[in-house]
């Protein structure tokens, strides 16, 4: 009962804020456009095997590097495979890389960030220093180096990207926890003798979720670009499974003979990254209290 009474105003306020943020988000045309792109990509990724017009893996040497036609809307690649089908299946690779990498980054980064912010002292110093050291090098370089040492595969690329992106969440979560930790309701929960894990899960995590969600959306965009970059370098998804970056990598050998081969996968990367960036920017504006 005490807990219910204590949580009620906070939850009502949070629910009102969420409704307000959703309203702002839906009123933002750029965000809706971004959301449309993201949903389209998600649809392609989830229903890839139902909507692909051709087999994206099996070569067809009679159709090597054909231009766009009524049968093959975006043409065929160097092994005669339908580019549209490969792009649809590629959406699955890119989005899974985005979701899994961002998931690893959010979970690991936030876990250590909350720990550093809540525990303070030596734990905070050690975690913060490690996060600073990882942030000291450009994200993509860390991902490339990690992927090199882990070996070329999509799973390893996702782990590498997730680990490289995690320190941003550590810093963000830590700074948010430091703010929340000093609030009256956390102090009251402590005074009531609640255990630390209960305070963290019930009082701190819900209140630091908004900025983490915004950052996660922007990290999705970063992760899609990073996966495409690693695949472009041959460190991501391995042939014959399609990925937009790997498709660009093979297409760059045919710039004069078949420029279309380079156009479509790049456009797909650009649009999906743009979609997540638009949604992330709009979420940040909608959830930022300074915009009130």
């Amino acid at each position, binding site marked *: 009962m005490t807990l219910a009474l204590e949580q009620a105003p906070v939850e009502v306020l949070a629910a009102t804020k969420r409704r307000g943020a959703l309203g702002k988000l839906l009123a933002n045309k750029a965000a809706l456009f971004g959301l449309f792109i993201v949903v389209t990509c998600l649809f392609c990724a989830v229903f890839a095997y139902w909507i692909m017009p051709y087999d994206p893996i099996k070569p067809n040497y009679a159709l090597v590097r054909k231009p766009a036609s009524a049968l093959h809307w975006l043409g065929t690649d160097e092994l005669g495979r339908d580019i549209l089908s490969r792009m649809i299946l590629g959406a699955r690779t890119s989005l899974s890389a985005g979701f899994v990498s961002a998931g690893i980054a959010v979970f690991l980064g936030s876990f250590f960030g909350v720990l550093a912010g809540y525990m303070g002292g030596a734990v905070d110093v050690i975690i913060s*220093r*490690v996060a*600073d*050291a*990882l942030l*000291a*090098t*450009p*994200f*993509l*370089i*860390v991902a*490339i*180096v*990690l992927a*090199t*040492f*882990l*070996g070329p595969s999509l799973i390893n690329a996702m782990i590498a990207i997730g680990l490289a992106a995690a320190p941003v969440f550590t810093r963000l979560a830590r700074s948010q926890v430091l703010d929340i930790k000093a609030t009256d309701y956390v102090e009251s929960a402590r005074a009531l003798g609640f255990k630390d894990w209960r305070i963290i899960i019930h009082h701190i995590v819900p209140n630091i979720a908004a900025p983490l969600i915004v950052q996660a959306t922007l990290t999705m*965009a970063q992760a899609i*670009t990073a996966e*495409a*970059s690693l695949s*472009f*370098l*041959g*460190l991501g998804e391995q042939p014959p499974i399609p990925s937009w970056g790997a498709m*660009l990598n093979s*297409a*760059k050998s045919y*710039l*004069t003979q078949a*420029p279309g081969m*380079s*156009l479509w*996968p*790049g*456009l797909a*990367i*650009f649009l999906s*990254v*743009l979609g997540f*960036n*638009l949604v992330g*920017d709009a979420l940040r504006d909608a959830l930022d209290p300074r915009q009130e």
Partner: protein
Amino acid sequence: MSAMLPYVVRRVLTALPTIAIFACFVFLLQKLLPGDPVLAMAGEDRDPATLAALRVQYHLNDPLPLQFLRWAGNALRGNLGESLRNHDSVLHLIAQKLPVTLELALLSTLFSVMIGIPAGILAAAKKGSLWDNFARGTALWGVSIPTFWFGIVLIIIVSVNLHLLPASGYAPISEDPWQNIRTMILPAFVLGNAQAGILMRHTRSSMLEVLRQDYVRTARAKGLPELRVVMAHAFRNALAPLVTVTAVLLGQLLAGAVLTEQVFSIPGFGKMLVDAVFNRDYAVVQGVALCTGVGFILLNLLADIAQLLLNPRLRAS
């Protein structure tokens, strides 16, 4: 100046553990490798005596902290190991390739500053206008477009179709300055485009912050021309944070250079990293990672000090 000294010393002292922890990471990466590194070194010779001798020679039987201290000591003396492929010293290889990437990074920064800062100033001065929306849209395009794809598209348009500039290759500036510029324009523009978007966003927000200040309102009330208010009063004060952003972006360019150099076949630092990745030349990968990290940390340090020099309020506090 002397008042700044304690801050500078403190800032340098905080950078040192960051460098040490980063070096630790780079060292531990090699330990992530599956299998015994000695087997790779020995090649065909799997004689146990040879393997044991190699382990002793490379101190691989020592405890890990001791191995790290030895490696870090060598790195401090400039010995980053030897390339497995051509048996050249890693430091020598880096010294050969770094000037090419630095030239690319500086040219790209020039492009990004030339595009991003004026666009940001104009967007902030005309907030909410068509120009503001256009500039913000362009910035979003800049941060969303994958550099390697933009490079490929520009090669198709500018080099393959219009035959205006070479699609790839590199000529050292000391040998053929004209050809050097011709080969560097496209990659520098591609890299600069991505950074211009970020710089534009920062310039816009920094300018908007300053344009809200009372002294800007006073300057306007005194009847000063808008151009003077924006450039002489607002921009000067918005400049300090931009120095930090530009320095950080210069570091980020090294990451972008990896892909851009690959697309345009420029024999720089980034291409060396990719080649080392494919040749499993781990000493080179480690050396490049270490140099990039340390360079990035030092660049941030310099940017912080520069910001202090530019901002009298920071000096006072």
